[in-house]
């Protein structure tokens, strides 16, 4: 009864405290709630895993900014890490100036984590991975890349001549790229789908925010995209898949975020159930 009374007169601050803990603890001690992978995520993973020969090229479009970073940043990290683990080459491209900072952060992070967990197979900037310099023009850039990537950019995002970089060896245009994964929360995804996929037949996967995911489902159905990562959940599923391979030790941002989300949601539900139990017990007592 004491407990019921406590619940009935619960001070909000207990709720605040427990909620904060529910969210903070997964960051310090990742839980790893079980997760089912959905077909759109699995098909991107499988494509990189099985359909690209060693030395193949994955292009990642980083067309997002800090406002959607929470959802899309983990995707960029995990896809890049996966490609490296299969000894593929990774190129980042961005159509917006803010994207360059995002991509550089991903490259730094992934290289550092990779080399820490795989000292016997080190990866290098310029040899295995790089960022193509930002060039204004959006759809014009996408189109030019279909003709000649080296001419479109000239340099990488760090000021090196592309023609001198090992990572660019044998890459002329989209024909030499095995898969493009476009990460964006805006309609720039369509630019890539229409021009790069539509005109040049570039194989594409999409990574987008949970809000925009519904919008792009039709492109999966029409087979214009081979797969899609939707929001934190999509990124977490991918991390889960990569984790089973046990080759990469980087922090699983999306899974942690998802853990925090899940524990918060569970807490909400327990809270509501407790509140109702207390409410009914009290009502019955008062009814007597």
């Amino acid at each position, binding site marked *: 009864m004491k407990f019921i009374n406590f619940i009935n007169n*619960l001070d*909000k601050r207990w*709720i*605040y405290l427990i*909620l*904060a803990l529910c*969210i903070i603890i997964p960051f310090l001690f990742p839980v790893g*709630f*079980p*997760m*089912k992978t959905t077909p759109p995520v699995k098909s991107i993973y499988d494509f990189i895993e099985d359909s690209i020969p060693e030395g193949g090229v994955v292009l990642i479009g980083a067309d997002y900014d800090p406002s959607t970073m929470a959802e899309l940043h983990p995707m960029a990290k995990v896809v890049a890490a996966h490609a490296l683990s299969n000894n593929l080459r990774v190129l980042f491209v961005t159509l917006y100036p803010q994207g360059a900072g995002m991509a550089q952060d991903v490259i730094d992070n992934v290289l550092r984590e990779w080399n820490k967990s795989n000292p016997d197979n080190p990866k290098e900037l310029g040899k295995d991975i790089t960022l193509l310099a930002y060039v204004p023009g959006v759809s014009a850039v996408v189109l030019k890349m279909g003709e000649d990537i080296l001419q479109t950019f000239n340099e990488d995002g760090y000021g090196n001549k592309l023609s001198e970089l090992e990572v660019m060896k044998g890459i002329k245009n989209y024909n030499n790229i095995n898969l493009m994964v476009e990460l964006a929360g805006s309609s720039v995804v369509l630019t890539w789908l229409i021009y790069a996929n539509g005109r040049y037949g570039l194989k594409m996967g999409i990574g987008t925010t949970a809000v925009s995911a519904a919008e792009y489902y039709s492109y999966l159905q029409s087979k214009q995209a081979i797969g899609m990562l939707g929001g934190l*959940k999509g990124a*977490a599923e991918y991390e889960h898949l990569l984790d089973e391979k046990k080759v990469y030790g980087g922090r699983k941002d999306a899974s942690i975020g*998802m853990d925090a*989300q*899940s524990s*918060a*949601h*569970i*807490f*909400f*539900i327990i*809270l*509501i159930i407790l*509140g*109702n139990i207390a*409410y*009914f017990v009290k009502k019955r007592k008062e009814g007597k």
Partner: protein
Amino acid sequence: MLKGKGIPIFITFLTGMIMIISFFIPHKPFGDIEKISLTWYSIIAGFTMLLGVDSLIGMHFRKLKRKDENWFFSLVLIIGFTATVVVGIIETVRFGTAFDERSYFTYIYNYFIVPLQSTMFSLLAFFIASAAYRAFRARNFDATLLLITAIIVMLGRVPLGEQISPYLPKFTEWIMQVPQMAAKRGIGLGISLGALGVSIRIILGIERSYLS
């Protein structure tokens, strides 16, 4: 005559009618009227902002002078305000615009305004919890329904829901697309009719409380 309500009510009537008519006439000058009136509003609001600043800063000056209980915080407010304006002016002189990346004005934005705003915003995570705790009680049929849909949708959004049943996320989507959408449209239709009612009452001068 100016002191009465007649002239202002006529002005409201006239501007209101011009706005409505211009919706149907793309020809100049009517076609641009919406854009122009929004520009005008921002100019008028800009001047009025000085009244606002006068109101706020004046109040805190008075508190400071009277050494009110919270005078120290009023001082913080006034310093924050003055410093931002002064930095804005200095950096405008230095870089041509205060919004330059090297400008300290940008620092104020990035390291004061952004964290304060986003932390205020994130308080919602807590408030939504306490509101849910209090409000989601199965008091009657409707409240129970509210509670159940909330829980279903909440579960359908996280992986846990999929573990419980693969249909849960789909059902969530259905709730959002069908019953949720239906009520939202119904409310929306009511709102647009209500807005029409308010507008017509004001343009015709039936409702004049705003003019005192």
